[in-house]
């Protein structure tokens, strides 16, 4: 296992100090963990728990107060390691006066790529993150989600071995989130190692192989997602629809074996599943609208030209889309209770 480690962190401590050298924040306290080659590693934790700080320390943007970091076999302050790393910052800190093409070309140049290779990569990446329609627009005109996408594209410009993603899904709509997750999984399939941090539990659960949970700068949990989540003393049955007689029979059987029945229920889909299904149907059957029973809205006859996702998000609140929209716009409010 040790040889497989792409990142080794030992007793990493970071104290932010003010201008006079006085201690302000203990952002990270004696953190130790390894990230192995080819896995998707998730750093999970509420806001301010030190996830971003960890990333910046890994990249040498910050200097550790104490402890050691080895990343791709090099020190964090070594510049050459950056040749093999892609980094998506927390917010896409890009130059807003450049357009998408210029942005990718610029970062390509920083990897000393020749012009032809840059053109190829730029074109491929812009298409793969779905920004082909806006490639000549300056980034200051981009929406937050679009900025995230171009941010991901710039992180992948050098075809890196190790990808560090800081809150990759923040600011993305559910579709974009799904795309982002798919892309992260694809990166793993290509043999890359991915480290991502997030406070959105669902994202982490869906894609990560292993996670670490940070709280106030300290490591609280570390392990494989499936193992951490598996409840060893609960068994779940999933069957086709059963009528009440069968359920009663099953209860009998359980009683005979001295087992306790906790609940019998119809499973609910996640909101994400519902949303994605709705959008998919809208694409297949354009023009269909959801109307509340009581009264059709006055503008119901208009809007045939609207794009599927827009019409989906216009459906009334009780179907839940607006809540999910708000959630993805303001990630900070979606933090787990701590």
């Amino acid at each position: 296992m040790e040889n497989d480690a792409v990142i080794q962190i030992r007793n990493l401590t970071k104290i932010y100090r003010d201008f006079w050298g006085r201690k302000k924040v203990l952002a990270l306290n004696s953190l130790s963990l390894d990230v192995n080659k080819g896995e998707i590693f998730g750093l999970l934790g509420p806001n301010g728990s030190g996830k971003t700080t960890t990333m910046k320390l890994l990249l040498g943007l910050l200097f550790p107060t104490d402890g050691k970091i080895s990343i791709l076999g090099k020190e964090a302050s070594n510049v050459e390691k950056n040749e093999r790393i892609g980094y998506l910052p927390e917010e896409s800190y890009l130059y807003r006066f450049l357009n998408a093409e210029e942005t990718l070309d610029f970062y390509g140049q920083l990897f000393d790529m020749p012009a032809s290779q840059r053109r190829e990569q730029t074109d491929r990446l812009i298409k793969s993150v779905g920004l082909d329609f806006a490639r000549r627009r300056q980034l200051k005109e981009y929406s937050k989600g679009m900025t995230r996408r171009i941010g991901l594209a710039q992180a992948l410009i050098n075809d890196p071995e190790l990808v560090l993603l800081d809150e990759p899904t923040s600011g993305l709509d559910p579709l974009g989130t799904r795309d982002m997750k798919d892309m992260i999984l694809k990166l793993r399939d290509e043999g890359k190692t991915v480290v991502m941090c997030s406070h959105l539990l669902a994202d982490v659960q869906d894609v990560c192989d292993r996670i670490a949970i940070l709280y106030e700068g300290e490591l609280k949990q570390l392990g494989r997602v499936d193992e951490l989540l598996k409840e060893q003393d609960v068994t779940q049955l999933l069957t086709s629809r059963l009528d009440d007689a069968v359920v009663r029979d099953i209860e009998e059987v359980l009683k005979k074996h001295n087992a306790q029945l906790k609940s019998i229920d119809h499973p609910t889909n996640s909101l994400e599943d519902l949303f994605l299904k709705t959008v998919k149907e809208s694409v297949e059957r354009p023009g269909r609208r959801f109307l509340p029973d009581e009264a059709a809205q006055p503008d119901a006859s208009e809007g045939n030209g609207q794009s599927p996702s827009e019409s989906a998000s216009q459906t009334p609140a009780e179907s839940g889309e607006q809540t999910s929209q708000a959630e993805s716009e303001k990630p900070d409010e979606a933090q787990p209770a701590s």
Partner: protein
Amino acid sequence: MDFDPEPYELLPAVLHYIAAVGSLLFVVALVAVIWSLASRGRSGPAALIEGIKKGCRDFAQISPRRVWALSMLTIREALRRKALMVFVVFAVLFMFAGWFLQQATDRPDLQVEVYVSFVLKAITWLVLPVVMILACWGLPEDIRARSLHTVVTKPVRRSEIVLGRIIGFISVSTLILLIMGGVGYVWILRQVPDPSYLVSRVPIYGKLRYTNRLGDERNAIGLEYDYSINVGDIWEFRNYIEGGTKSRALWYFEGMDADDFDDKLIIETGFESFRTHKGDMDRGLLARLNIMNAETGLQVPLQPFTVEEYTQNLHEIPRKLQYFDEDTQDFREVDLFEDLVYDGTLKIAVECLDANQYIGMARPDLFIRLPDRSFFAGYSKAILGIWLMLSIIVVIAVSASCFVKGPVAVLLTFSFLILGQPFRSFMEKMVTGEQEGGGPLEAWYRLIHHLNTTSELPASLLTNAMKFIDQILLNFLWVMQNLIPNFEHFRMSPYVANGFDVPWSAAMLPSLVVTIAYLLPCVLIGYFSLAMRELESK
């Protein structure tokens, strides 16, 4: 051939520079070793050496493509952020200024001077603040917006960031300067009433000596002084020779060779007259040039001429000279170079022919005028001078912005500018002790006790302590004076405005050397400050 006003000595300058930078490096190294020992104990020096090694690697591995990318980024940023608004201001200023400048004077040469120096000053003072603020704000803004985070997580060396910024901002200033220079040139051509005054004269200056009124009979070398009569105005820099006596002003032009004398030599004079009596008011004072052989004493008088003030007096000396030889009472022909130049030295004696009248002159009042260059050539050189000054400002500003925020960087750069120009001569006088009244503390003491600057200070413990502290302050000033560039070197507009070409050795070379000299230490300072800090805005 090199007869510039004050030729610049390159070798001593370079040696001085090496000594200064070397001792600075030594001090820095010493401080760094002590600091590393204090902060890390025994392993400190090793870490320090590691840091220096890393620095060397970062400079050795500089990739031109990355530097290019970063400079292009800087240029794009400046252009897209509308830095060029300054053009509008410039144009407006020009439109208004034209009204006021027109009636300034009716002497064509002064008009040229007014227009040319106006344009060059306007360009300098419009571009300088813009470029300075751009360069000071670039990096700090990049750090504040954290866009630099994305850049430094690519395999970019910090040295490349510093260089990229410097090259980028210099390119921006080049662009602005080219456009403004072009507009200014066209404006001058259109405004100046008599374009024949737009020339770049190429002068060769000689050395000036005087003889007094008793000067030796035929061989006037006898008694030579480097001063002559002062006519009573203590600010006057010219010395006067008395008419009708043996008082002469003697110019020596050394290092001449035959190539300089095609078929004629043109001498330009600009003397001042001082009359002790009215004399003939309808004409100027009479003067005469004599060409002399310094060895044989052969003296060839030229035609007398009247001294016209405020215009150029041109004298054409043909290669073959005819003159009336008093000894043989006959006409003789001599060759200007073969017969009159001795050991490469041409000697010209000026005499005043009106008795009891005086003619005043200083070193630049008589010079050999080589074929003129175009006004454009001189103007371009003045623009180049502005460019060099902008470049050095960019270099200082960028390296300052590596360790302080934008406003502080502006302040720092601006104080360099102030200390490097108007304050400089004052500072020099303080340091050399030429300025009376002593150092700052002593000056305060004198102010409070109503002592004038020349009276002795009473000897006491207090005054001695004061003098001691003053000495430390003066030493600090001495260091500052050696650290801060002399921006006087970059001022070439006086040459152009007065119709001269910008001399290479006296003006172009020093400014070029100063710029290059600042580049290296500044890049180093910028690099190490960037490399040693966390790029987190505080």
